[in-house]
């Protein structure tokens, strides 16, 4: 014959044991299930958060790069314009310089040519003078050397003048 408790019994030992059981169950459920699932869900949330943060960082970086690139482009264009302007300016000044130099050189050459002409003229005059004086000397010599008659004298003077004319 099995022994049964009556339907409703107050049994302090069972009560205490069931309280302990509840706490043991609480602890076991927490340790083997709730904490583990919670950890996994937290990890997943963190991963998702990290993805979003990374994406935002990447976007900011890309925008930064774009900004830098645009700035560089602007600077490069300004520099190119500057260079072009400088080149134009220097080319202009250079051409003006060259023209000036050429004009100067031309003037110099002209001047020199004029001086040369002058000098040639002087030289020619001097030569003529020398020639004339030489001729005069020669004529004088000839006159001295021979007695001149009137005809001869006339002839000689004509010749002399002719010679003189040819020499000039």
């Amino acid at each position, binding site marked *: 014959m099995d022994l049964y408790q009556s*339907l409703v019994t107050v049994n302090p030992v069972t009560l205490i044991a069931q309280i302990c059981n509840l706490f043991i169950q609480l602890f076991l459920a927490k340790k083997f299930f709730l904490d583990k699932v919670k950890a*996994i869900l937290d990890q997943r949330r963190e991963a998702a958060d990290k993805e979003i943060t990374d994406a935002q960082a990447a976007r900011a970086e890309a925008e930064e790069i774009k900004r830098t690139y645009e700035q560089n482009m602007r600077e490069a264009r300004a520099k190119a314009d500057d260079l072009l302007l400088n080149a134009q300016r220097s080319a202009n000044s250079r051409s003006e310089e060259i023209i000036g130099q050429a004009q100067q050189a031309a003037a110099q050459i002209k001047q020199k040519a004029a001086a040369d002409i002058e000098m040639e003229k002087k030289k020619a005059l001097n030569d003529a003078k020398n020639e004339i004086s030489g001729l005069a000397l020669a004529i004088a010599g000839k006159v001295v050397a021979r007695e001149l008659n009137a005809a001869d004298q006339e002839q000689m003077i004509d010749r002399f003048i002719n010679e003189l004319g040819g020499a000039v």
Partner: protein
Amino acid sequence: MDVSINGARVLGYINLPLFGDVQITQTLTAALLVMIIITGVLAWLGSGLTVTGISRKQAVAEMGYNAIVNFVRGNMGPNFDYYIPLVFAIFATSIVSNLISLLGIWSPTADLMTELAWGLVVFVNITYHKIKSSGIKEYLRGFLDPIPILLPINIMSECFTPVSMACRHFGNILSGTVISALVYAALVAANNALFNLLGSSLYVAIIVAVVGIALFLIGKKLGKKLPLVLGIIAAILGVLAVFTNLGVNYPWLTIGIPAIPSLYFDWFGGCIQAFIFCTLTTLFIKQAAGD
């Protein structure tokens, strides 16, 4: 008809220093079994979790976890997450204890002490939050409200919180047990009456079986449902009556039929009482905390 409904079976006695001879009842062994089942299932569900590419098992685990978290947060707000394990432990223990009776094992929740244990734990938490939110002086003064003469009634109403919680749960499970026992006893009685009648002579039994088979065949041939069903019932009864007449005595009617009331009292009642107990736990604590 003699029906006796008992409490937990006493398995033995242990001599404890303070309590003397104490009874070791089925409640304790069944509670241990329940704990092993819950912990085993939870440990299985909680093993091999991964962050990405989850298995079906993990989906179930996460669904359960989210359900209990949403339940506690929905009833108590976001500041009471530390009650999740307690509510979860009570809910899991309650539901498994209620349903374990379907396997023919003594249900620990059919012992008032189990629910009273939970109720006392909840009561301690309620009292803690009451004292914490209003201070010990205000808490004690609350017993004199609205007039000091109501002090005994206030004390009683305070103490009956765990008792009422425990008795609500216990009563529902007990009613299931009582109804099941009554249905079972009634079926045994009906079974005895029926088969005493049918099995009194072998010829009657055989005639009933033959008539049943004939009805079944006719119903099948005509395509009508009523003779078909009646035929099946008569044939089975006839065959069982033959068995009974030959000396195989078994309460045949208790096979299958008790499952119909059990559907409500064990399945529905078991689930709904676990839910109600947890809802009351969360609501009472929330109310006591007052914010």
